[in-house]
């Protein structure tokens, strides 16, 4: 007789003990799966609640959304508007650094925000797309067609300007833009917006007959590049605090190419009259000199609210502490929003991808399409995907758009791993499941999916980690999250602020990884882990 019969006798001798142990193990396992079930259910309800909270629009009529573009001055004007509105009794939802002109304008039209600061030149060229100069009356009536109103001018002209290092300009003897004609070797770094604008580089170079080949770069980075002599000339705004800081000189626009960029606030015509009135308190109060000081104050203290405080000191001669949010509060808000974006997009991606992956595990052309489409989606740069989604009806500048983009990005790893996991189940095991008399649906739920669970979980983990990183881009369309400080930091050219977002985002990605490793122990049947370990051991031999 074989050894195995010996085993059996011993087993029988120890029978009562064994049985108890077995039952214990059994109930432990059942408790574990019940625990897992509760965790999953709790997660689901939490996500659902978050979804509701975020979908149901705030019905508080006294809340006003104020937006700003992504540069210091716009942030500071946003903070001043916030304080003025709060003094008038409003609650303010300040959405700082939402993006470029088009993004903030769309947000205004959609009603995501009620007002934001802009410039007459931008309104005429970029928003109303008029080739000829317009009077403010013409602008007002054109804007009214979109349901938008415009305040009076705030008092300063922040026009485009071309700036060079003062010493460099003196050495080369360049004072005016037309002097550049004799210097085609000058390296130019221009903002992407300036390169594309109807009153930007193209017509400027034609008017002045310039041959230089500029390259596009982020505004704040261009200052650094200019200071390090990596470039010799950049486009700037005439109220930039950095002009003084870096000792730059602004070239004279001797052919009067640049239109006037007088600062105004744009607002929705359905905004409370009292709120508009509060904002109009700024009209005519800020000249170029003051604006440069406010910008400088904000950049010196790395706090936009400090710039706003200076406004109240200088203009209203009162000391107002425009309180900036504490770091902990901001971090909590960013992280909370980040987790919401990741959580909701991942939950939907999981619910959609697993059924798709199951379908894609079968042979056929449809399966190739199911794998192929998310695959193509993943090759679209995330920034481009966001930009492509913004014009889609119902999306626009909102967290929904960010969630849709993150969802689309998260599909592929889950779909592919689900399909692969199922395809890798050996035929004899498939046939065993069939031969037992399990219905096809039970074969899937009791055998195939549990056997593929490890591969599927790995796909979800991959998605989640990519998702946490990509979600920082949500801030580009005003959807918040840990990308917010990264973008502000870029605007301020301040590495510390960038790190306030970058470090928590990286930690979050690591945390996600750790959580999934723990989940692997909790959710994956021990038999599969043992099997993998033994296969690895065999492979080593």
């Amino acid at each position, binding site marked *: 007789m074989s050894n195995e019969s010996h085993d059996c006798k*011993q087993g029988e001798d120890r029978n009562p003990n064994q049985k108890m142990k077995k039952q214990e193990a059994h109930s432990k396992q059942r408790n574990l799966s019940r625990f897992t079930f509760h965790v999953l259910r709790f997660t689901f309800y939490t996500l659902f609640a978050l979804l509701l909270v975020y979908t149901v629009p705030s019905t508080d009529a006294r809340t006003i959304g104020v937006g700003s573009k992504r540069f210091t001055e716009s942030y500071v004007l946003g903070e001043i508007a916030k304080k003025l509105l709060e003094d008038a009794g409003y609650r303010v939802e300040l959405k700082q650094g939402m993006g470029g002109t088009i993004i903030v304008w769309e947000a205004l039209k959609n009603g995501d925000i009620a007002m934001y600061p802009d410039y007459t030149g931008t309104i005429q060229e970029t928003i109303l797309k008029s080739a000829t100069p317009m009077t403010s009356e013409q602008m007002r009536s054109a804007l009214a067609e979109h349901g938008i109103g415009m305040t009076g001018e705030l008092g300063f002209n922040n026009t485009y300007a071309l700036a060079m290092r003062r010493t460099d300009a003196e050495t080369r003897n360049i004072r005016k833009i037309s002097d550049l004609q004799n210097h085609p070797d000058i390296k130019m770094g221009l903002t992407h917006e300036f390169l594309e604008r109807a009153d930007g580089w193209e017509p400027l170079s034609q008017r002045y007959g310039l041959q230089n080949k500029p390259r596009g770069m982020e505004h704040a980075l261009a200052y650094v590049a200019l200071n390090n002599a990596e470039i010799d000339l950049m486009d700037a705004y005439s109220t930039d605090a950095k002009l003084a800081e870096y000792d730059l000189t602004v070239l004279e626009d001797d052919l009067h190419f640049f239109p006037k960029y007088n600062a105004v606030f744009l607002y929705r015509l359905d905004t409370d009259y009292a709120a508009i009135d509060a904002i109009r308190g700024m009209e005519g109060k800020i000249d170029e000199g003051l604006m440069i000081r406010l910008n400088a104050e904000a950049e010196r203290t790395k706090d936009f609210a400090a710039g706003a405080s200076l406004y109240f000191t200088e203009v209203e001669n009162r000391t107002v502490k425009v309180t900036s949010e504490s770091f902990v509060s901001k971090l909590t808000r960013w992280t909370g929003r980040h987790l919401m974006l990741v959580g909701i997009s991942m939950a939907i991606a999981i619910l959609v991808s697993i059924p798709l992956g199951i379908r894609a595990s079968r042979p056929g052309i449809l399966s190739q399409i199911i794998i192929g489409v998310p695959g193509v989606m993943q090759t679209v740069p995330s920034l481009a995907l966001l930009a492509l989604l913004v014009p889609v009806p119902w999306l626009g500048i909102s967290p929904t758009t960010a969630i849709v983009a993150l969802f689309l990005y998260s599909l592929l790893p889950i779909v592919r791993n689900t399909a692969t996991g199922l395809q890798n189940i050996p035929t004899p095991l498939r046939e065993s499941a*069939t031969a037992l008399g399990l219905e096809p649906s039970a074969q899937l739920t009791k055998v195939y999916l549990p056997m593929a669970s490890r591969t599927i979980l790995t796909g979800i983990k991959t998605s989640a980690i990519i998702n946490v990183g990509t979600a920082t881009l949500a801030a580009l369309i005003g959807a918040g999250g840990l990308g917010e400080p990264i973008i502000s930091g870029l605007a301020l050219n301040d590495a510390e602020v960038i790190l306030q977002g970058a470090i928590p985002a990286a930690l979050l990605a690591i945390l996600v990884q750790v959580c999934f490793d723990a989940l692997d122990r909790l959710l994956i049947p021990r038999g599969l882990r043992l*099997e993998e370990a033994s296969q690895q051991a065999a492979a080593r031999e």
Partner: protein
Amino acid sequence: MNETKIALRDVEMRFGDVIALHSTNLQVEAGQTTVLIGPSGCGKSTILRLIIGLLTPTSGAVEFEGVPVSQGNILALRRRMGYVIQDGGLFPHLTAAQNVTLMARHLQPPLPEDEIQAKLDELCELTYFPKDGLARYAVELSGGQRQRVSLMRALALDPDVLLLDEPLGALDPMVRASLQTELKEIFNRLGKTVLLVTHDMAEAGYIGDSIVLMREGHVLQQGTLDDLRERPADDFVSEFITAQRSLVQL
């Protein structure tokens, strides 16, 4: 005793141009152990797979108790048959006990827990499987133990028919010999209809009441070992039997 449990009526199985089984008639008697034997590729496994419905015949019909097997009744029929394959086919994410009780718990309504436990105890005893192995996963079991668990799983719903496809094929000779003894004893005790595939003539002669010798998709002869030995249907039958002489005869 001489009632037909399963019958193949002019069953032919083709895969494209390849004929795995030429038009075949075969009767499996109830309560007997029938052994399908022949060289590899002779179609013996194909017959088991046709009966359990993993394959659908290209023409002809498989009958179970006189009723043709169809899409409509195959699910119920599979639960009246147990199927064991060469390396056991145990699901790696389940313990031995969970593999065995999978169907009993899946049925609507499921069997009562005490009945399931009693059945487990009974099956452990029948197959000489140590009870402390029940909580183990397939990777933690030896090849012989895996086949015992696979047999327990096949017997869990107390089926009328057992289909075994080279159940001892992957085992080393010592374990194989002892399991042959145990299998014969188990079959005798249970009195179930058994259809076993093997390529080992000694195993067939030892375990089988009736032997079906096959070659290249044809059934050459069906009968007892003595029938095949004394009255071979053709030269191949006698060649096949003598080619597998045992060491004892040397």
